[in-house]
């Protein structure tokens, strides 16, 4: 982060919820994450943007260890990420994840998709889990679809179910890996609206997205990544009106004028 001084907009007093310390990762010869340092405080909404291949999805996925890292440390809620096993499974339950391709369980109904994690992982009694699931489905606006299978829903509906499924675990932080990139344009807003609501409710969120409107309106902080580095980070207003780095200026000029 030599190119830009870091202006941390978060209050120094609050203990950070997610901390990445000098994280590095390689895919063979490709250095996808280079010396990543990042602190995310409780209730903060961090939006990751940048050109494709810049490492933003990878970064997002390292936080619940769907991607392993080569060096550095990641802690969530003060605890370092454990190695593969029961301990890691427990931690993953605290970190919600929403994928680009929804990844709803195709052989389960919508309701069952939201119930299964609560029952099997959190050991919540089934009636209570179903009640929670129906509330959440109602909240994301797909309550009427509870008994259908995922394939019977539109992309936007599926993604909202996926958000409900993650929320059912009562996570401390939610990761969104390009949640609207696989959606038809008319469905993007219904998903972003749910995410905006979530942000307004104080959920800690890490969002990889190409939706600059969402970044502007919902983010506390925008991180701009390129070539595996966090090149620039700032408040959305400052970033979008006056980007400091050439990479960011170049990127914004390409996406904001069409």
């Amino acid at each position, binding site marked *: 982060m030599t190119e830009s001084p870091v202006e941390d907009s978060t209050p120094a007093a609050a203990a950070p919820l997610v901390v990445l310390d000098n994280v590095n990762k390689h895919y063979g010869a490709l250095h996808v994450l280079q010396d990543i340092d990042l602190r995310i405080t409780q209730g903060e909404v961090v939006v990751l943007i940048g050109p494709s291949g810049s490492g933003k999805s990878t970064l997002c996925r390292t936080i619940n260890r769907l991607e392993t890292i080569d060096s550095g440390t990641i802690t969530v809620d003060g605890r370092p990420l454990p190695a593969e096993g029961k301990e890691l*499974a427990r931690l993953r339950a605290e970190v919600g994840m929403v994928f680009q391709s929804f990844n709803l369980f195709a*052989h389960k109904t919508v309701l069952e998709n939201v119930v299964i994690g609560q029952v099997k992982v959190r050991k919540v009694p089934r009636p209570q889990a179903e009640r929670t699931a129906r509330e959440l489905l109602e909240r994301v606006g797909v309550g009427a679809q509870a008994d259908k299978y995922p394939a019977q829903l539109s992309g936007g509906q599926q993604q909202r179910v996926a958000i409900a499924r993650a929320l059912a675990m009562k996570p401390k932080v939610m990761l969104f890996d390009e949640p609207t990139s696989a959606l038809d344009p008319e469905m993007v807003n219904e998903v972003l609206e749910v995410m905006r609501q979530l942000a307004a409710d104080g959920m800690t969120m890490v969002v990889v997205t190409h939706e600059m409107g969402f970044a502007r309106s919902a983010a506390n902080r925008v991180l701009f990544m390129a070539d595996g580095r966090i090149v620039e980070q700032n408040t959305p207003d400052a970033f979008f009106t006056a980007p400091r780095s050439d990479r960011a200026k170049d990127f914004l000029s390409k996406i904001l004028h069409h």
Partner: protein
Amino acid sequence: MGFLFEQDNFALFRDGFLQTIELSALSALLALLLGTLLAAFRVSPVPVLRAFGTAWVTLFRNTPLTLLFFAVTFGLPPLGVHFSHLVFAVLALGGYTASFVCEVIRSGINTVPLGQAEAARSLGMTFGQTLTLVVLPQAARTVLAPMSSVFIALPRNSAIAGAFSVGELYSAQQTFSERGYSIFAIFFWVACAYLLISATVATFFRFLESRLAVVR
């Protein structure tokens, strides 16, 4: 054709038939359980288990079944392992078929999109939960067709047990031959019996396929 109903021939035939069914059913059960376990090993994150699964498949799938029967029937007793001939036959046939079941299930697992397992893991499911609650149920449907081939081959492979002192259908044929009956008549009845078993297995799998087709 009529010899079957002379003397005690029918009883011998019936006992052989039942023995073949018993041997096949037990071997199928062992193959299914062991094969599923081996498939889980082969996709597990633990290198030792993966190596074990690969080694098992390589060894058992590439060894002639007759040799496996030899190894089990004559190799285990000197090591102090003593079972009935039937149990030895079940071990050989089950262990052999398990290697095929393993590969069929593994191919099924590979047809389930990776995102399904990632979603399961991101909810905090363990490897075992991910496999049994999310991946295997979805693999089941694609696996049925090749699996039926494996389990149709199994009763026919069980004929080798006849050479290792198990009184099954094929050894009944040997007795009939020794008694001097027409070879065509004998094989007609034996073939009918195997056909009946295979057809039953095939019908069962077709039933499963139609049942699972509704889900989703």
